[in-house]
């Protein structure tokens, strides 16, 4: 039907990607392949090399695995710096994340083979355990990064956080106005709803999205639809009821947003402190190993 001018598309194709590609499948899973190869060779080495007297972190092969593992851990922890340091150059944070995920997973194999399965109650095993904790928390992170963004987007419905808050404030203003003609008992319910810290309830409420003490809900229960007085459904009570329902829906959207954001971020509160603890434990592990050589 038609011909395109060729020059533009050629130019862009040469320069950058034209489609969305997740960090998990970045460059046809290049880093998954690298990490897989690393694990495979570590396994082969472990079973083919005759380690005397038994597989151990102190054999030459154990030292090799330990050095690789240490190098990887230090490099993996540098993602936090890379992410914040917006320097020039042809790097992409997506490639870093991809490598971080797959090489991090390969540490399960490398680190565990390095122990020679000699676990005990000591600083060495502490380092291994911390490493596993970091990896498991990271796995949770990968899982929520895959599962939740779609829900976050669907819940947002093109509104920004600021707009959601502004919409709530607008409903509150209308509610205040509309509740003036109500009786004492009912206006107390509305006042309680308006005065409540709607996002309070602590970390648990944030993560589960359950707010059992929600005063807006209570106010809705306190102003039930009275079907016997259907004729009078334009009165002040009905207006307040409509506004309360709207407020409830708006709160629901904001709370779902906060919940999803919290689920997307909560693992970092384990992942990062555990990484710092791991680096400290590794320092102790390496120092003690060399001290008691």
């Amino acid at each position, binding site marked *: *039907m*038609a*011909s*395109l*001018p060729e*020059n*533009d*598309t*050629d*130019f*862009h*194709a040469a*320069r*950058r*990607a*034209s*489609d*969305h*590609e*997740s*960090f998990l499948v*970045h460059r046809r899973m290049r880093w998954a392949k690298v990490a897989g190869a690393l694990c495979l060779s570590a396994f082969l080495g472990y079973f083919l090399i005759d380690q005397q007297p038994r597989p151990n972190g102190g054999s030459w092969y154990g030292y090799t695995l330990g050095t690789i593992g240490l190098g990887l851990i230090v490099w993996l922890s540098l993602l936090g*710096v890379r*992410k*914040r*340091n*917006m320097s*020039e*150059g*042809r*790097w*992409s*944070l*997506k490639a*870093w*994340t991809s490598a971080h995920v797959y090489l991090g997973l390969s540490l399960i194999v490398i680190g565990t083979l390095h122990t020679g399965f000699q676990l005990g109650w000591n600083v060495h095993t502490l380092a291994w355990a911390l490493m596993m904790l970091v990896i498991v928390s990271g796995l949770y992170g990968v899982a929520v*990064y895959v599962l*939740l*963004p*779609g829900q*976050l*987007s*669907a819940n*947002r*419905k*093109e509104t*920004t*956080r600021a707009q959601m808050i502004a919409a709530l404030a*607008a409903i509150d*203003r*209308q509610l205040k*106005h509309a509740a003036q003609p109500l009786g004492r008992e009912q206006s107390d319910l509305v006042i309680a709803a308006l005065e409540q810290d709607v996002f309070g309830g602590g970390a648990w409420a944030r993560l589960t999205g359950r707010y059992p003490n929600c005063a807006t809900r209570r106010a809705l229960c306190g102003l039930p639809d009275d079907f016997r007085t259907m004729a009078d459904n334009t009165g002040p009570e009905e207006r307040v009821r409509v506004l309360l329902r709207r407020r409830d829906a708006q709160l629901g959207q904001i709370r779902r947003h906060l919940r999803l*954001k919290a689920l*997307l971020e909560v693992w970092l509160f384990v992942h990062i402190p555990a990484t710092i603890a791991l680096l400290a434990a590794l320092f102790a592990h390496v120092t003690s190993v060399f001290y008691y050589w």
Partner: protein
Amino acid sequence: MPEAFQVAIIGSGPAGLSAAARAAALGMSHVLIEKADHLSDTIFKYQKGKHVMATPSSLVLRSDIDFDAGKREFVLDTWNEQTDGHKVNVAYNAEIASITGEKGDFLLKTKSGTEFRAASVVVAIGTQGNPNLVRCPVGEGAVVQYQLDDPGEYIDEHIVVIGAGDAGIENAMGLASDPQQRNTVTIVNRSADFATAKAANVAALRAMEAEGRLIVRIETTASAIDKGEITLDTRDGEVKIPCDRVIARMGSAPPRAFVEGICAKFEEKDGKKAIVAGTGVQFTSPDRVAYPKLSPTFESTVPGVHVIGALAGYPLIKHCMNQGYDVIEFLNGNRDLKPADEPILAAKFARLPGNRSVDDWLAIFGQNILIFQDVSPLQLRELMLDSQVHAFAAGEVIFARNDTGSSMFAIAQGSVGVEVNPDDPSITVPIGQGSIFGEVGLISGRRRGATIRAAEPVVAIELSRTAALKLLATSPGASRAVTRISIERQLLQMFGSGLTSQDVAPLVDSAEVMQVRAGEVVIAEGGDDKDVFIVRRGSMIVEKQIGGRQVFLSYLPAGSYFGEMAVIDGAPRSASVKAAIKSEIIRLPGDGFMALLASNPKLRERALSDMASRREVNAFVESRKNSFGSAVDMYSETAQFLVDNGIGEATDVLLIDEKLCVGCDNCEKACADSHDGLSRLDREAGRTWAHLHVPTSCRHCEHPHCMADCPPDAIRRGPDGEVFIDETCIGCGNCQRNCPYGVIRMDARPPAKPSLIQWLLFGRGPGPGEAPYAWRKKAAEAEGVERPKVAIKCDMCAGIEGGPACVRACPTGAAIRVAPEKFLSIARLESVE
């Protein structure tokens, strides 16, 4: 009989003020006529404390009044003081309604009936215009005002705001915002919707209405205003409501009609008063951007009436002030005065061979170059200020294929060769002296299509986009010449090498440039019309009816051609083509096209093979319609969503896949850290469809709206296609208002933050990303340097190795920047499979 002055100057802005001061200094009898009760109304109306800039810095100021960059108050104080010092004769509160008479004896009448007589008139009224007045009868004692300075001033009043544009809505909301004022505010809108206002303002207005804080009346007009009462004409009949004050915000009329009516003869035409052709001050064309025709001494087509300043096409303060000085010097008989820009032009022309004077070069340009032939010397001078002159040695590359550039070149001396075949640079098509090249980039806003080399030593003028567009809008001759040349070139480029301009001449003669509205169908599927079209500017989308649904087939940017299949095979149209945005297309009659193919067997073969591949795509889509109906729907709807969101005019757009976006805002942080600490994108804002999100971020439009009205011409297109704002920005905010996508912000560049290491280790500074406003304010105060607010927008990270920071900094791959035709290609559909 009023006193006769040597010169009457209308308007006390920078141009008028400078003219009056010069007249006072020369001892000429003069009067400076100002409609307001203060000098320089446009700058007076700037917000308090606004930093007024003095660009271009290379231009020397030649005026009896001082001017330097600084706060609005400082500038106005200086002018007020010096106007008094020069004993300028100012008539305030005098709005001129008509000017009659002739050179030597003009009669100027104000609205209030005062009269002035003057031998010459200088019109320096700027382009701000006057507010449209209410047309209904206004009774004695009724208060009608056209401006609202402080909404907090009025209490306990019934106020009616007429006009529901942004100004009216903002005024109404301001008046109703504080319930303590107890005002009853009504806003009256003539139509049912708020078409001219920003969506955010309309939403806020509706919210206030819902809260009962103000009253919105739609489909209503005022029919009479009396003291304490207004009569409204509503859909349900006449309504009278109490009203102590009317605030009318119904836009303003550009001053052009007034200027055209100066000394004009009027006649009755179809019952309306019309100007007799050839009388009054004439403009160069009916185009909205046209300026009055002026002589080198700023004299209009009415002898004795001079036009200077923004109205004459010079929006910058320094230009205006220099012209004020110059026009009075000319009137005083100084014929040797060189314009103040002479040194700038001399410096520009110094690089040209032959050691000629500025006047010599201007004469050569005017004589040799086809498109300058009906351009006045004054206009040519102005054009040269916005342009570059170049001397190229034989064999030198002037620009290369795929370079970006929206400038147009004119050859003053010598000739160039166009490398039509990128694979074989030895095949060239010559372009001779007096002609132009580079016009495709100007018209379509796309990359250069071919490399151009100087064939012999060449002197060429490079007209910036703004200069070239101004020329085309004001000179019909230049516009015709450029249109013809560009059609011919587009044909030659489209059909590749082997054709000469003689071959395509009949087709060029029969070609027709057509304007199409967004959404207008150019070709209807199944039709048996037989024309071929080229997209000149804008873009098209191709759709096909499959299984009862419109399926999006492809997106055609400027430079594409379509419609040739039906011509070649004689079959009905196989798909529909409609405009994605307002576009310009060239229609070529089908028989002319066939004749061209018949005489060029090679060309025919190529056209046939091109056609075969497109048939394949059609067949592919057709064959899969059952197996992936939902994928096809998805693809079509995604394409439609993107087109609805202005992708049709984009060259490069940030798209976020919200199935991947975790909302970390690292894109915004990276943007801020790469550009002076301010983010140029808003990730969350913007439209979303099926998890595909178009955030608020510049799309680098083919014909950027922001460029339309930039006084210092600070917005340009860079080497990677990016539209950027350079350091000459004066912070006027025009681009922000003109951008339909809201991607430009006005802000002061904050001081540098402490380094990342300092933040990581010691917690110093606000950390990565844009610092909060409070921190920026505090840091700027601590620094003690005044930083003006300037326009800030995405520059696609030009000059930063690695490309756009937002994309590089995305940890999950959710963000990409992409050209629309690349994203909207059928390849996506194949990959869905």
